[in-house]
């Protein structure tokens, strides 16, 4: 048995959206997962306001790093690296985290790893279920993304199988919740109402499921419009809107398509593992239906606990630790935030001389 002390101790910083996350892991073991959320400040706008998020990140960063270190019971000088979400995400929000990570790594004399937010969402499952099977099929669903990804090595090879051609799945939840006057964010509240509704009450459309449609892409815009029209028609006729049935039927349409396509991708590619991540992975119906369909298809389903599915620093630390363990090149001090970092880049390696200059400074 290897001594867990040999595994890399990494601190991860995540600021791609409205959560300021700082996590600490040792290898595949979670030591701390500190998150400060600005969600309440966005609620009255019905969506994340980028400038509000950026301001909140700046205020929350230092206290959140402190909290994570205390929670983990480790000292910053023992870290083997500092990882940070380099993208994709909100440009201004990302830049706050990247600035903090660079300054922290530089001041501590540790290597810096700018990593991909989507790959981090996949890698976080190592903290829950141990090393990722290779290959792994991943379904990432949140307010910002809806993607099917295939990875043979999370530090170097992530292939996009399909993604949404319009709205993200979580975005559709937010919009329908708004139409139903249920507030923001929409995911948890729709899930709650749906539990008391009939998922077959209304036959909402399943986007991109026709025989000639792309097999692994998603579309939720048409569904969103259909649900809104249906509700408006009721309101226009002076009838009461059956909120629970609408929530259940809408949610069923979303999770039906998501799980159907994910299972199909696994079968087509001969992959016997499916992981689901992102904020929408907390949806109870998505978990239940995915479990049912994976079991029927002989696929092993891995879904981290809800707190690890939403944006957090632990997922960034998890991928950073994997970068250290697999000897991937560190990022340069000129690392930039890239709001549209391609999913095919799990990390942003630097030009090698940059770190040497810095370390000379610190240790000479």
């Amino acid at each position, binding site marked *: 048995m290897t001594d867990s002390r040999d595994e890399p101790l990494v601190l991860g910083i995540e600021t791609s959206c409205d959560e300021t996350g700082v996590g600490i892991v040792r290898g595949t073991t979670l030591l701390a997962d500190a998150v400060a959320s600005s969600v309440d400040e966005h609620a*009255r*706008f*019905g*969506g994340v*306001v980028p*400038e*509000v998020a*950026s*301001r909140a990140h*700046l205020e929350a*960063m*230092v206290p959140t*790093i*402190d909290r994570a270190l205390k929670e983990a019971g480790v000292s*910053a000088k023992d870290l083997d690296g500092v990882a940070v979400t380099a993208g994709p995400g909100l*440009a*201004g929000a990302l*830049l*706050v985290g*990247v*600035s*903090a990570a*660079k*300054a*922290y790594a*530089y*001041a*501590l004399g540790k290597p810096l790893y700018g990593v991909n937010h989507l790959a981090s969402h996949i890698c976080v499952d190592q903290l829950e279920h141990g090393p990722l099977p290779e290959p792994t099929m991943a379904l990432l669903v949140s307010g910002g993304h809806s993607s099917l990804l295939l990875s043979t090595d999370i530090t170097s090879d992530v292939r996009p199988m399909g993604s949404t051609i319009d709205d993200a799945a979580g975005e559709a939840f937010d919009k329908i919740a*708004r*139409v139903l006057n249920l507030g923001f964010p929409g995911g948890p509240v729709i899930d709650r109402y749906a539990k008391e509704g009939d998922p077959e009450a209304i036959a909402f459309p399943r986007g991109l499921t026709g025989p000639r449609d792309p097999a692994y892409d998603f579309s939720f815009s048409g569904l969103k*419009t259909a649900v*809104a*029209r249906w509700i*408006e*028609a009721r309101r*226009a006729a002076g009838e009461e809107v059956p909120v629970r049935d609408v929530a259940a039927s809408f949610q069923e349409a979303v999770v039906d398509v998501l799980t159907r396509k994910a299972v199909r991708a696994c079968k087509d590619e001969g992959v016997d593992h499916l992981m689901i991540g992102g904020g929408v992975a907390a949806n109870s119906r998505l978990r239940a239906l995915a479990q049912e369909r994976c079991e029927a298809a002989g696929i092993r389903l891995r879904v981290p606990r809800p707190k690890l599915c939403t944006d957090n620093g632990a997922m960034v630390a998890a991928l950073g630790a994997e970068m250290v363990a697999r000897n991937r090149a560190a990022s340069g*001090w*000129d*690392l*930039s*935030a890239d709001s549209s970092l391609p999913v095919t880049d799990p990390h942003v390696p630097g030009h090698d001389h*940059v770190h040497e*200059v*810095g370390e*000379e*400074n*610190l*240790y*000479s």
Partner: protein
Amino acid sequence: MLLLALDTATPAVTVALHDGTDVIASSSQVDARRHGELLLPAVDRVLTEAGRKLEAVTGIVVGTGPGPYTGLRVGLMTADTFGLALGVPVHGLCTLDGLAYAADIEEGPFVVATDARRKEVYWATYADSRTRLTGPAVDRPADIAERVAGLPAVGAGALLYPDTFPRAHEPEHVSAAALASLAARKLAAGEELTAPRPLYLRRPDAQVPKNYKVVTPK
């Protein structure tokens, strides 16, 4: 005393090291779109040039703006985190005060104005290079023309609007060297510096989504 000063509140990414007597190394690059990329390498360069290690720094000085938010936060976040990692105090200084100090004008009053974008300027007035009279504030140049009439002015915001600031001259941007010198002088005199918190001066742009639009035909 070894102060590391940095400012990213104007198009300049500027870093300086001050030993309590003099500025011993500095760097200034003007590139309004790459604050995030340029700052850390600049810090590294300045330390190398001075032959010092970051851990020898006894305090951080950071320009708190006002300035365009995205760039402004790069400096503040970097300063905050250095302070955390090194366990040294982080001092804030109004960026316009740094510019006023760099202007080196003994007899005021004069104006410091930087570009606030959206056809506005961040501005403040000074009695001399070390004494702020009013501001900082953010306004349209035409709206403050009367209040700044006849006064000398420095900063890119003044140079940009000659109708309002006919007596505008250099310096255009703040330098960390000036910020460091001003901070060293204030600290030596036992003056308190401000907390390293951003001077945004404007509320965040928050477009409240329009009320849910009816999509059924009327």
